[in-house]
């Protein structure tokens, strides 16, 4: 039963981070802060949910898969966030 509690706790905190990310997306004034809120909160949220599910899953391949998804998500999010920020930046200079 202990593992169940860990899973529930981790997933709840993960969802809280997602909520933070969305609130940040809606409330923050400009693109960069929203970008910051989005990538940081969401990735941590996703990480915690993956962690919770890892515990719930318990099998080695399951854990590896979830870990792999998390790492890939972080990598993809950082590159995308960087490119979008740079793109938005260059929008300012061009016209």
């Amino acid at each position: 039963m202990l593992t169940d509690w860990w899973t529930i706790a981790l997933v709840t905190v993960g969802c809280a981070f997602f909520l933070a990310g969305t609130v940040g997306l809606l409330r923050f004034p400009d693109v960069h802060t929203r970008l910051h809120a989005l990538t940081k909160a969401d990735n941590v949220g996703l990480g915690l949910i993956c962690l919770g599910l890892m515990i719930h899953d318990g099998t080695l391949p399951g854990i590896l898969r979830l870990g792999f998804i998390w790492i890939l998500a972080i990598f993809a999010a950082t590159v995308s966030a960087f490119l979008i920020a740079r793109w938005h930046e260059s929008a300012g200079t061009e016209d």
Partner: protein
Amino acid sequence: MPVSDLLASGFDVLLCIGLLWLAWQAITGTGLFRSVVMFMVFGLMMAVTWARLGSPDLALAEAAIGAGITGALLLNACRAAVSEMRSDEQPLRDRPSGVPKWLALPLSLAAGVGLAWLMHSIPRDGGPTPEAAIKAAETHFLDNPITSVLLDFRAIDTLLEMAVLLLALVGARVLLDQRRLPALYPVPDHPMPMLPSLLAMITPVLLLTGLYLFWAGSHAPGGAFQAGALLGALGVMYQLAGRFTPTHEPGTVNALLITVGLGLFSLFACLSLLWAPAPLSHPEQGAYALVLLIEFALMLSIAATLVLLFVGSRSLQLRRSTNHPGGRQ
């Protein structure tokens, strides 16, 4: 447990409302770019819907083909729509269509409500085909029932569908022969920051997942289409990063890749007369290997055709890397 049913139906209600809102925004929204974004998100939501309705194969296909490739093609259209627009033309204004709004809205609303009622009221009592399909799927040498239907029971559908995909490419070439439009993604003069590293990271993962999906297709959700679309998405990524140079000379490797699927499948259909009275019948022994071979050919053809459709050129050459600027155009 009523709570889980409550949550499940809550999830579905929200999903459906999201689908309808996204579809409405994609169609009646003002900006074309915004509509394309909405449509891509609609594709993502459809993939979640397929997962929710218990058909993971379709979730994979919708994600890879529906959201991935179609989204990239639509972005291409957006970009082409503007970059080739002559200066005198105003932004994409929408001229009133022949059908006036006061007629179109009630007509489609009536059709929609009528269909919704009809679709809901048709009794879901299966029928001869579902029973036969479910019963036959258990004893079939392919464990994945959908692949067994696609590649055995209704094999001619899959074969002719490959002809449709090939025709789309030949049709695009007819247009290319008439008028060579400038490449949409010219090779970037300065290498994009961070993109090569993302490419280096994603390529092995995509290749691995693609091959896994192909291999899993015979006994678990997955198959030639999902794997082909995923490899197509990888090709799109390479084109975006400037690693492909589109050329207009006919490339033999490209021609082989796009025709191997249809060619092999048709050859199998003809040769199957040797061991069976009717075409497209699988031999007793070696059927599994044959299906894998055909699926592999289909995967290659789908990936190659989708990439060529995205790039919009006759063939592609892979360039070593983007760091030497001014690559051959």
